[in-house]
């Protein structure tokens, strides 16, 4: 029977990654709140700082779902469990960050646009993306045959991601209101994106990316440990019947 001491200790690399993550998160917070200048009032003034969290969250969301796509293809080709675990882990984290995008957006939009939600191209395609991977996670939890979960989920992981560009173009033509890149970042009218704002933005992007890597490593470790516990329970059950 396995005891805690027999389980693999937490790898040192994971702790180092955690330390790097939280250091960069602290640095990014300082830069975002104290170095980046206040934005023009038409962009929401102080409220515009939410952009330093909103955009990196969106980036992590897309990164996660791209990983789900690639890991799903790799799983269908090789059948190796680790790809399925990677796809599952990335989908869960992607949902968390896409949810953050859908929460931070309206907080900014309410005072600036005067409405919580607009059926605008980028908002709509983000919502479609979110619903697609909610469906993906439901499929994982509802599959009746546990052995088939990986295969079924991989199909949705691939099909869902193939749909992203088509959804993007169709809602783009449908209607668009969302400000793109520099408009949101513009700190003062006509001044463009200043060095302090760019520094804060890229620091935040780095912090979010490290946070993603750390969360993904933790989630993969949990998944591997869960597989191991399952295996040992089966072995024990087999040993008891002998």
């Amino acid at each position, binding site marked *: 029977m396995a005891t805690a001491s027999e389980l693999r200790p937490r790898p040192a690399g994971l702790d180092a990654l955690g330390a790097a993550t939280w250091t960069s998160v602290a640095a990014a917070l300082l830069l975002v709140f104290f170095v980046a200048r206040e934005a023009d009032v038409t962009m929401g003034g102080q409220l515009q700082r939410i952009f330093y969290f909103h955009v990196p969250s969106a980036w992590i969301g897309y990164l996660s779902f791209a990983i789900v796509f690639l890991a799903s293809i790799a799983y*269908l080709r090789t059948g190796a469990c680790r790809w399925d675990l990677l796809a599952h882990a990335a989908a869960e984290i992607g949902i968390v960050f896409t949810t953050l995008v859908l929460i931070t957006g309206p907080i900014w939009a309410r005072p600036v646009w005067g409405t919580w939600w607009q059926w605008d191209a980028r908002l*709509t395609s983000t919502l*479609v993306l979110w*619903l*697609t991977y*909610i*469906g993906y996670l*439901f*499929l994982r939890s*509802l*599959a*009746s*045959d546990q052995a*088939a979960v990986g*295969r*079924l989920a*991989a*199909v*949705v992981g*691939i*099909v*869902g991601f*193939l*749909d992203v560009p*088509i*959804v993007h*173009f*169709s*809602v783009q*033509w*449908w209607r668009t209101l969302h400000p793109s890149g520099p408009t949101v970042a513009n700190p003062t009218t006509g001044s463009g994106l200043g060095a302090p704002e760019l520094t804060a933005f890229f620091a935040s992007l780095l912090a979010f990316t490290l946070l993603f890597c750390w969360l993904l490593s933790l989630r993969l470790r949990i998944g591997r440990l869960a597989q191991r516990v399952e295996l040992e329970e089966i072995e024990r059950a087999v040993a008891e019947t002998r």
Partner: protein
Amino acid sequence: MTEAGFVTKTMWLAAKDLRIELRARDTLAPMLGFAATVALVLAFALPEASSGNVGVVAYVQAGFMWVTVLFAGLIGFGRTFEVERAEGALDSLLLVPVDRSALFVSKALSNLAFIVVLEMVLLPLSALLFAYDLGGSWGALVAVVALVDLGFVAVGTLYAALAAQTRSRELLLPLLALPALVPVFIAALELTADLLLGAGFDAVAARGWFGILVAFDVVFVTAGVLLFDAVLD
């Protein structure tokens, strides 16, 4: 006797599904009944055509028409593997000496037949009941419907096969399929609303929505053919 080809086997499999439906009548008839009730319920939300804003009315009419087709279609697609599942015949079906993609194409063809019959009943009937003014654009509407059906059936059949292997088939199919079908739905809606507002085929074809529909059809028919093997193993 020589081995039958891919096309022949696919046709046999599709013909089998259609023959079962002709005898049992347990998919198409409920689909039609469901479509009629959806249309009835939606009718109460329809603004009066005489209320003034013709553009809004055209969009609402087109939207209701496609919502009805989408919901009734998903109800029908949900039953794609019902016969095999209920009789425990899925394993026998998998033993048919044919490529899995033929299985996908045959199931998609029988679903296509269902949805085409549904539309052949629903579209003229709703044109009659809701006084659609299509003028001479029926031909253009048929082209739009054909492109929409292809993508709808490809996604619907693939996801129906997925959902059939879960504990909650009826809920999971729309949950998975509706977000994926958003581009098809928007394109169908825009094109149909244009036709209702009196645009000709050329004006509609120039709007680029046909491009979205064709791209969707190509991507998802290909994805269905390639991925079906992974769904049924």
